[in-house]
């Protein structure tokens, strides 16, 4: 590396798209082409990157993906990944607004549905404002979103998540990649990018919980998850790169990998479980025995078993705790 002027690795057949120039200066100062972040908690190591795709670079369009990482309650971390709907011109702003507001709203309510409803209202207000400013009645913005709260336990981590649209969550373990919250892209043999998104007249999220006891958890926009799900060589490469957390700049370059026919923006947040600091054993007393340990949750240490999937993706969705995915209201 770098394999080309864009500094991204090539996976598979040489894609001629790496020959394009860096493009013209953007009309607006934000969003920037790439965003990178790295942080950690005791027991977790986190990397995040969002990279403008080749299609947007070639057409001088903005990156429409966004992500957020924010400290949560009780030593947890909140993660958000958004994918602005490409057919609407202000979708990058929708993605950014969700990232800016959803973690805080969740911390106020501890309720993904309530937080998403409030974000939805704010998005509708923003869209209305922009429509009024331009005299337009057309849809101007929409974004998919996957968000989660990750908290370390004695045996791994608990993940409480919410999702609207075709953003995904995967796990990487010694056995390879497994979709935790996936999306259907097939429509009787034809590929489709139709998706539910915010704002919506009926913002119903897929909400659930899962336990992870080893490896890493990833939140992806479909710029990453679609080529990952379609290519064994992509799975192998990303598994080799991300078995352990790379440095943040390497991670960003890898997220931006070039592959023929996949030119969307790419965003990934990786959360690696790392050994926690050694804790001195507490002497056994009556009080200590009564206090239940935090990790003594029902089902702790076990992944929630997949059940039937409202999208028709058998084996890809964990247990629905509340709500269902919405198929309507696609922009």
């Amino acid at each position: 590396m770098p394999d080309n002027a864009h500094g991204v690795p090539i996976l598979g057949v040489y894609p001629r798209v790496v020959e394009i120039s860096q493009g013209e200066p953007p009309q607006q100062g934000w969003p920037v082409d790439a965003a990178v972040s790295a942080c950690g908690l005791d027991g977790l190591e986190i990397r995040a990157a969002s990279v403008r795709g080749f299609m947007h670079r070639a057409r001088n369009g903005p990156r429409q993906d966004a992500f957020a990482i924010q400290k949560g309650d009780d030593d947890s971390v909140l993660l958000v990944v958004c994918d602005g709907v490409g057919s609407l011109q202000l979708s990058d702003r929708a993605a950014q607004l969700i990232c800016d507001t959803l973690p805080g709203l969740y911390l106020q309510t501890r309720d993904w549905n309530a937080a998403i409803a409030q974000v939805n209202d704010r998005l509708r207000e923003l869209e209305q404002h922009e429509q009024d400013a331009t005299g337009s009645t057309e849809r101007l913005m929409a974004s998919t979103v996957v968000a989660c709260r990750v908290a370390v336990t004695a045996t791994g981590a608990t993940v409480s998540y919410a999702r609207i649209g075709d953003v995904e969550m995967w796990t990487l373990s010694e056995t390879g990649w497994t979709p935790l919250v996936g999306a259907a892209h097939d429509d009787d043999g034809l590929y489709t990018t139709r998706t539910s998104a915010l704002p919506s007249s009926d913002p119903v999220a897929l909400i659930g919980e899962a336990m992870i006891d080893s490896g890493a958890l990833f939140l992806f926009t479909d710029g990453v998850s679609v080529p990952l799900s379609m290519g064994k060589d992509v799975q192998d490469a990303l598994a080799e790169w991300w078995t352990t957390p790379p440095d943040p700049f390497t991670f960003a370059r890898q997220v931006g990998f070039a592959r023929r026919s996949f030119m969307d923006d790419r965003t990934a947040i990786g959360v690696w479980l790392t050994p926690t600091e050694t804790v001195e054993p507490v002497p056994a007393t009556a009080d200590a025995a009564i206090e239940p340990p935090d990790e003594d949750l029902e089902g702790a240490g076990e992944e929630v078993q997949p059940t039937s999937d409202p999208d028709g993706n058998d084996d890809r969705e964990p247990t629905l705790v509340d709500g269902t995915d919405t198929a309507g209201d696609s922009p």
Partner: protein
Amino acid sequence: MSEDQAGLVMPFYIICDTSGSMGPHMNDLNKAVAELLNSITSDPVVDGMVMLSIISFGTGGGVDVPLDYASDITPPTLPGRGGTNYGAALSTYGEAVKADYARLKAGGSKFFRPCVFFLTDGRPGDKWEQSFNDVVRYDPDTKQGNKMYPTIVAYGFGQADEGTLRKLAYPNFGPDEKRGKAFITQSKDVPALLKDIASAIGSSVVSSGQSGSGGGTPMTIVPQEAEGMKTLEAEEDIF
């Protein structure tokens, strides 16, 4: 044939009439096809998004270029094929798209809806409607028919018939989204005409490839009216 690798395939099929009446114009047709390929390969983004196949027909039909990325296609020399049987053209297309889908799906690829560009200088000499129904008809309520129906853009010149072109482009059953566009011209300057049609198709393919920019669903952007051509509007009573 390009190296097999799972991808998102946006397929375009160019169906060319190479009947006897096209004999004097075959060099121009081959040149137009080569220019079309060149216009696509000159844009690396589009070249990575779309795949093309070229089918010629006369009395019978044949696949001259199997579905592939433009940069992996050698410009063909299309063969003359005798009469003007639309049924042969559409049957050949139907078999080709089925085989292409099976081949690419086996390699892990996924298809967007196909688009067909149909170029003809004559009226059909056969009963073609059944072949047309086989590849285009789909009922979304009963899910009977061909779910992978294409969008058809028809270009007619010479002896081509307006009503037939309308039928090809605007079948009045199933979802409206399959509706393509029909164009006709009385121009006798076939070399210039073929060049303009190739240019319009190239713009359509490039625009379609670009329409998938980030999250947006790539869709067929039907061509604008080429120089000297008339757009035929849909009629309600077709079929």
